[in-house]
C-alpha cells in the first residue's frame, strides 16, 4: 500500500503539478483580441505581421502600425482606453512577449516558409489568429524556451490537425515528410 501511495503521489505531481511548476508566466501588456481585428476590422494576418521590403519578417507589429488605426480610441472598452493611455499617447512600445521566439542558435526564415513553402500561419502558430484574448506568455524556467516552442501540451500530439511545437524535431519531421533538406547548416548558420 505505501508503494502504491508513493507512486500515485508521484504521478499526480508529475502530471499535474510539474507542468505548472516548470513554466513561469507573465501576462501580455495589452488585452488584444485577434478575433475582433479579424472579424470586425477585416484584417488579415499579413496586414500587421508583414514582410519588410528586403524580405525579412517584421514579426510583432510596432506601435506605429497599431497607431495607424488607433491614433484615437476606437470604441469605449477598458482595454482600448488602457492601450491608448499607456502606449499610444506616450508613444511607448508595448513590451510584447513573442510566443514563437526561436533561440539564438536558430536561423528561421519566414519568407521561405510562407512564400516558397506555401505554409499557412496556423500550421505553426495554431489558432492564435482566432483568439479573443492573448494567453499569458509562459517560459520554461530552466531552458528559457517559450511554451509554444515546446508545444502547448507536455507531450506533443501527433494527431492530424494538432498544432506542433517548434523544436528542432518538429522542423525536421516536417522537412522529412515534405522530402526537403534538413541538414544542420540549414537552420544553424
Amino acid at each position, binding site marked *: 500500500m505505501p*508503494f502504491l*501511495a508513493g507512486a500515485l503521489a*508521484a504521478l499526480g505531481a508529475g502530471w499535474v503539478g*510539474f507542468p505548472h511548476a516548470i513554466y513561469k508566466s507573465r501576462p501580455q501588456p495589452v488585452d488584444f483580441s485577434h478575433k475582433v481585428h479579424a472579424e470586425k476590422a477585416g484584417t488579415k494576418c499579413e496586414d500587421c505581421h508583414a514582410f519588410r521590403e528586403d524580405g525579412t519578417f517584421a514579426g510583432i507589429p510596432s506601435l506605429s502600425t497599431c497607431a495607424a488605426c488607433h491614433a484615437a480610441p476606437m470604441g469605449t472598452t477598458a482595454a482600448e482606453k488602457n492601450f491608448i493611455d499607456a502606449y499610444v499617447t506616450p508613444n511607448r512600445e508595448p513590451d510584447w512577449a513573442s510566443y514563437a521566439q526561436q533561440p539564438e542558435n536558430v536561423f528561421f526564415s519566414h519568407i521561405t516558409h510562407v512564400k516558397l513553402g506555401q505554409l499557412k500561419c496556423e500550421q505553426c502558430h495554431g489558432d492564435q489568429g482566432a483568439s479573443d484574448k492573448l494567453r499569458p506568455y509562459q517560459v520554461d524556467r530552466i531552458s528559457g524556451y517559450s511554451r509554444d516552442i515546446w508545444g502547448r501540451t507536455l507531450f506533443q500530439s501527433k494527431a492530424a490537425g494538432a498544432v506542433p511545437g517548434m523544436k528542432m524535431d518538429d522542423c525536421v519531421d516536417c522537412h522529412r515528410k515534405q522530402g526537403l533538406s534538413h541538414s544542420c547548416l540549414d537552420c544553424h*548558420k
Partner: protein
Amino acid sequence: MQRTRRDILLFMGGGAAGAMLTPAPWRLVTDAAIWSENWPGIPRPARGEITARYTNCALCPAGCAVRARCVAGQPVSLAGVAGNPLSQGALCAFGLTGHQLPYHPQRLKQGTPEEAAAAVRGAMAKCGAGESVAVLDLAPGRAASWTYRRAMAAVANGVYLAPPPPLGGAAVNLAKARTVLSLGAPLLDGWGTPGNVHAARANFRLIQAEPWESRTAALADEWLPIRPGSEAALALALKDPKTAPSAAQATGLTEKQILDLANELTANGPALVLSADDLPEALALNHALGAWGQTLVARPEVPVPDAWKKAAPERVVASVPDNSIRVLFIDESVPGSHIPWGAIEKKLVRDNPVVVAFAWTLEGYGRHAQFTLPTAVYPELTSDIPPAIDSPAATFRISVSLVAPPAGMADPSAFIAKAAGIDAGNALQERADAIHKSGRGTLFTYADGKSTPLKDIKPDAFWKSLNEGATWLGGAEEPLTRRRGDAEEIPGELPSEAPRLRVSASDTFPLLVAFTTPTPATLSSPLMSKLYQDSDLRMAPNTAALHPDTARASGITGASRAVLETQYGRCAIGVIPDESVPPGMLEVAAGPEILDICGAFTRAKVVAA
C-alpha cells in the same frame, strides 16, 4: 496506524517508480541539456536592424572588397562584392571568417604604453654613434608606413626597415599572360588577389615546377616535380639551353622536358615566370622572354602629400649592421611578410635594446619584445591597403572599422610619431586628399557598383566614399623608365639570405622547408583553426612531415619528437614520416617557435631529440 521505516522506503520507492512514468524527469534532462547550450556565459549576437556595410579585407595585401551583413551594427557574416574590378566578388576562406578575429583566444588585450614610452625615451637619449632607432614595418606602402618613414627621417640615425618588395617592386598583369611558369609560387593558393587570379586563370596555361604536389601543383595544367632547390638551375637552363644537361641533372627532369618547356614559353607568349622567393634567375628569364612591359609592369605610385616626401628610405633588415639597433619598433598590427626573429635579433645592440612590438596577438614578435602593445585587429582597425602584387593599376582603399576596438588599444603610428616628435596628423585623409588632388583614376563604389571619374567627385565626397569601402583605381600602368630583369640590374636590395640559400643544397642544412599554408605568419580565425584541426586536415602547429628515407637519414624512426635547426637557431618539433613528402623536403606546419627560425624559404636539418 503506525508507520515503519519499511513503509517510508516503500513510499519512496513507489514515488520513484511513479515519477518515471511522468514527463518530469525526462523533461528535466532535456531542459538541462538545452540550458547548457544557452547558459549565460555564451556570447549572444545582438538582435536589431539588419544592414549591409562595405569594407576591404586587411588580412593580406590582396585587400578584397567585403560586404558585411550586420545585425544591430555587429558584423555577423562577410561576403565578397560582385563587380569589384580587383577582387571580382571572391573572398577566401580566411576572409570569410575574418569577423571572428577580435574574439580569438590568443587576442592581446593589455599593455603598458606609458612604461614603453618612457623606456623608448630613455633608450633614444642613450643612442650612441653607430647605433640606430628603427621601425620594422611588415606591411609597407600604407599611410602609416609613410608616417614611420617621416618619423625615422626626423630622428637622428633613424632607419625604416621593410621586407624586400616582391619582383623588385613590379606588378603582375595576369590578364595578359598566356603561359605562366611558376617555380614554387603558390599561385592558386593565396598568391595575389584570389578573384583576379581565378578570373585570369582560364586564359593562361599554368606549369608548376615544384618538388612537392602543393595545392597549386594539383590544380596546374602541368606539374613538373623537380628536386628541392633546383628552381634556379631550371630557370637558367630555360634562359640558356646550353645549360640544359646540368639542369637536367639538378632537377631530375629530362633534357627534352626542359627544352620543350623553353620552346613553349617562347612560342606561347606573353609568358610570365614567377618564383616563390624572387630568384634573380627567374627575373632574368622574364627579361629574356620579353615579360617586362607585358606581364610584368611598373605600377604608378599612389600619390602622397608633398610634405611627406622628406622621408627615410626603405631598407631591408640584412642591410643594417649587426648589433646596431638600440630601439626597434615592430608593427605587426596587420598581417604582412615574415622575417625570422633570428635575423632581426642579431641586429640589436647587445646591451639592453628596447623592442616595442605592436600586435594583436602574442604569437608573433611580441614574445621577444620588452613591450608588446595591443592593437586593433581587422575588422576593428582603420587602415589603407597597399596595391596587391597582381594589380597593374595603383589602388587606394581603406579597411573601414566595422566594430569598435576594445579600450586600451595602441595606435602604432601615433605612438611612433610621438616618440619621434612629429605630428602624424590625419595621415589617411591627407593621403586621400593628395590622391584627389592628382585628379587621376576612377572611384568604384560598392553599394551602387558604379565607377566614377575622380575629377567628377568633390574631396569630401571622395573621403566619405572611401570610408564606405570604395576603391580608388589609378590609371593604366606607366611605361617602364628603364629596363629591368638582369640579375645585376634589379633595383633595390635583394634579401641576402633566402634566394642564395635556395639555389644549392648545403651539407649543413640539407632539407628545404616548405610550409603547409601559404601565409604561415597569419593566425586564422578560431573557427577555421578548430575545423581544420578537428578534421585533421591540417597538421598541428610545430609539426613537420618528411619522407621516411629522409627521416632515417636523420636518425629518426617513426613519429617522434625531434629538433629542427636552421641558420637562425633550433627548436623542438613533432615529426611525422610521410611518403607523400619528397625526399630532401620538410613539410612544416608553422608555429611561433618555427617561425622564429625559418623564413619563407629556408634550409634546415632535423636531428633526433
